[in-house]
């Protein structure tokens, strides 16, 4: 029933692969720290070119923050849509020089429900989970966490002030992710950001030299 979206997502995936771009679907609750994480990533990613599209129901504040951090970014203002889909991302590609990027982040709408359902052509899905969301959060959102290739436990600089047991979070993840992968990070202090960059680096495709050979259903040109 999502065949239309999935077809566009496959098309996007082919484009990213041909261009040698690692596309990351970055998801998480509102306020989990997705934008701050990307800002911290840009600060430490010396030499890597980063582009992004940033989804929100209203405002382009997140995209503006990313641009100030040195990331080439455009916003997708969804109005009432609670998630990004492949068509929206495809559309936004016309406005951002994604081909020149090493890393392309699709910063999804803050929401742990709907974004999990929509393939947007990503190579990897990353869920940002902050330390203040409750140790059992993964159990409440099994659909989202099952699809995560990596969970970034954000705002760990706050742990000394909280009664949060990271082991309990890992236990919860193990019940919804067959191969749980958790990295503790702090955008504020930079903790874990290098490990996050190493994880991304290990997944970057080698640039393809192939011609842009596959057929398009409609005539359109990518920048």
């Amino acid at each position, binding site marked *: *029933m*999502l065949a*239309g979206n999935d077809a566009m997502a496959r098309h996007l995936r082919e484009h990213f692969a041909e261009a040698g771009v690692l596309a990351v679907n970055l998801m998480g609750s509102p306020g989990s720290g997705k934008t701050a994480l990307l800002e911290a990533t840009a600060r430490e990613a010396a030499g890597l070119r980063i582009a992004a599209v940033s989804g929100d129901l209203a405002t382009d504040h997140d995209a503006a923050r990313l641009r100030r951090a040195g990331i080439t970014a455009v916003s997708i203002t969804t109005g009432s849509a609670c*998630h990004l889909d492949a068509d929206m991302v495809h559309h936004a590609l016309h406005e951002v020089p994604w081909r020149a990027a090493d890393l392309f982040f699709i910063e999804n709408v803050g929401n742990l429900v709907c974004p999990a*359902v929509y393939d947007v052509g990503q190579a990897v899905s990353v869920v940002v989970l902050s330390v203040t969301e409750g140790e059992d959060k993964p159990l409440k959102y099994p*659909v989202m966490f099952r699809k995560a290739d990596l969970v970034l436990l954000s705002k760990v600089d706050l742990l000394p002030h909280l009664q949060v047991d990271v082991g309990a979070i890992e236990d919860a993840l*193990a019940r919804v992710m*067959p*191969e749980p992968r958790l990295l503790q990070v702090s955008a504020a202090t930079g903790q874990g950001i290098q490990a996050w960059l190493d994880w991304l680096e290990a997944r970057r495709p080698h640039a393809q030299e192939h011609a842009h050979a596959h057929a398009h259903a409609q005539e359109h040109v990518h920048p």
Partner: protein
Amino acid sequence: MHEYSIVQSLVDRVEAEMRACGASAVSRVELDIGELAGVEVPLLETAFATFQERTALAGAALAIHRVPAAWRCSWCAREIARGGPLRCATCGTPARLESGDEIVLRRIEMEVPDV
């Protein structure tokens, strides 16, 4: 919410089938919705009821079969206990989801006029 866009896809799909078969009406549509598909069944039912009226599916019944999540060891095929860690208790291999994330149109009952 995205249940509405799923209903839109469903309507498009059924209408295409109707054209292909020369059907005059649809009486029933059956869906499989997995527990881990991320689809809220009551919301889907409401969306269907709202959208079907001005379409070729007006009057069609919607039957939804909920498919529970079934995890198995990807190596030895043992069932994984519901709610437990998603790793085989016997061999430690990560589990695989055998069923439970479907959003599938399973069956359409249509009326095709005799020629």
